[in-house]
């Protein structure tokens, strides 16, 4: 008797849980699982991979993507960790500073990129103008490989640094004050505080943020596409912009799919690590 009541309750709970999450499950099935299966299906084409790996632009793109994900993300997160310490000081003007510091996060990526592009214009941009004022030769910022790739990375840092700084600031505020008081009794300096109290306690958060930011950046399209569009001469593509070029400029859908498929194993490893660490 009792077991049937429990059984019915459990069944009705399962039913309710299923009904309330049904719209969500439908979305994920229709617009994540299905397109992904379709993508894998299209990418099951050995010729596409042969074509990709013999394409020097693809090899260059893979290297660019590693630079972008490896350097931009890590520089950004180290800066965010340090700056969150600045914003943690309890002075009133620091709050104003924090509010202004959030502006790049609030402004959409596009206007920011356009502003950077005009600043970097080789003839009429402000950077070359200032170099000229100091008597230095002008630099064709977006027309040579390293400075163009550098511009993409610098913009990425400009735009996303505030967000991660706020995340780390919240992490710092969650650290109990007693730990710092205990460290102060031991006569710890601020550098020692950082290494022995702050960093050990933020390490998990820092690792999760690194993984998240790396996965997000791996698929970034907007910043590289609008900053360089692959120029000069298709040398500064990243995965997403190259896939766009293959698919829509060259009409090779299966190459575009294969470009993403190449990055899938690494992405799945990142996602697997995150799924183990993060709870919803």
């Amino acid at each position: 008797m009792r077991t049937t009541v429990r059984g019915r309750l459990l069944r009705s709970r399962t039913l309710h849980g299923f009904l309330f999450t049904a719209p969500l499950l439908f979305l994920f099935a229709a617009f994540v699982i299905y397109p992904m299966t379709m993508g894998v299906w299209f990418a099951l084409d050995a010729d596409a991979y042969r074509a990709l790996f013999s394409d020097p632009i693809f090899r260059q793109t893979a290297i660019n993507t590693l630079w972008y994900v490896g350097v931009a993300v890590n520089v950004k997160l180290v800066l965010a960790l340090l700056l969150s310490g600045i914003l943690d000081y309890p002075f009133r003007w620091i709050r104003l500073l924090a509010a202004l510091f959030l502006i790049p996060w609030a402004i959409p990526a596009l206007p920011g990129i356009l502003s950077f592009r005009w600043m970097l214009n080789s003839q009429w941009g402000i950077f070359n103008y200032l170099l000229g004022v100091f008597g230095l030769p002008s630099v064709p910022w977006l027309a040579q490989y390293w400075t163009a790739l550098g511009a993409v990375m610098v913009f990425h840092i400009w735009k996303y640094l505030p967000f991660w700084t706020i995340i780390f600031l919240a992490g710092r505020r969650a650290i109990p004050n007693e730990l710092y008081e205990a460290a102060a009794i031991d006569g710890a300096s601020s550098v020692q505080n950082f290494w022995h109290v702050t960093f050990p306690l933020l390490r998990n958060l820092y690792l999760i943020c690194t993984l998240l930011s790396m996965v997000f950046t791996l698929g970034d399209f907007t910043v590289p596409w609008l900053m360089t569009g692959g120029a000069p001469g298709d040398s500064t593509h990243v995965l997403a912009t190259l896939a766009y070029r293959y698919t829509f400029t060259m009409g090779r859908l299966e190459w575009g799919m294969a470009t993403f498929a190449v990055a899938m194993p690494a992405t799945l490893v990142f996602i697997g690590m995150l799924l183990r660490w993060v709870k919803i």
Partner: protein
Amino acid sequence: MNRARHSRALHVWLSVVAVVMLAWTLFPVYYMLLLSFTPTNDLFKPGLYVEHPTIRNYVYTMGQDNPFVRYFWQQIGNSLVIAVWAMVVVAAIAALGSFAMARINFRFRRWVSGLTLFTYVIPSSFLSIPFFRMMADYDLIDSKLAVVLAMVTFASPYALWVLSDYARSLPPEIEEAGAIDGAGILATFFHLYLPLIRPPLIAIGTYAFLYAWNEYLYALLLLTGEPRITLPVAMGNFLTTDNAPWNLLMAVSAVYSIPPVVLYYVFKRYLVSGLVSGAVSGS
């Protein structure tokens, strides 16, 4: 005495860092505004200030008085419609989902949770080409519905995350009160649960609105034709011509940035706490 000197040194050091931070943060924004007030004659004379400021670029934009901004109001309207739909649908779906995730202990919860996190993490661009194909198969290219569906899919996981996190902190009395009144699960959801989750619901609604307002890739892929594209796509299209009027483009940029900036600062309290509890609870 020693302490006072120490704190003065600290203030000097902090001020130096603050000046560098502000210059780095604000200069590109200042430069955008500067260009938007620059007359075309001065556009090719770079400098740190405008000699003859003009609001003509804004007047042209508002009056659609230039081939580049011929469909300005229509395009900003497209952006707005897509963002509002994304906001409403994400709020509805995430409210329903969070009730199940936080308040019902059902069997497949872990699966739903894993799938949600997977969708949150996988870069949306990885799915863009199959998604484009799919929408082409359903003949939904050039329809706002296609963009709204993409935005809802990619904004929902985070919304669900933040809402469930908040809902889990609510006392268990909600269901008990519902049970005493003899209310069914739907009545409990609408009359007891929904009013309680209003603050994070505002935060995630704003989040979804901004997500859709800022989106570039999916709008670029799924919409074509000047009157049907969204404002960011139109701005990106400026770049395809050699003689793009940059001062006009910056005026459009400034107008396009106003809604997000206002929303961020009005809802900052909600947004930051919502975002942060989501991120920090993950650790």
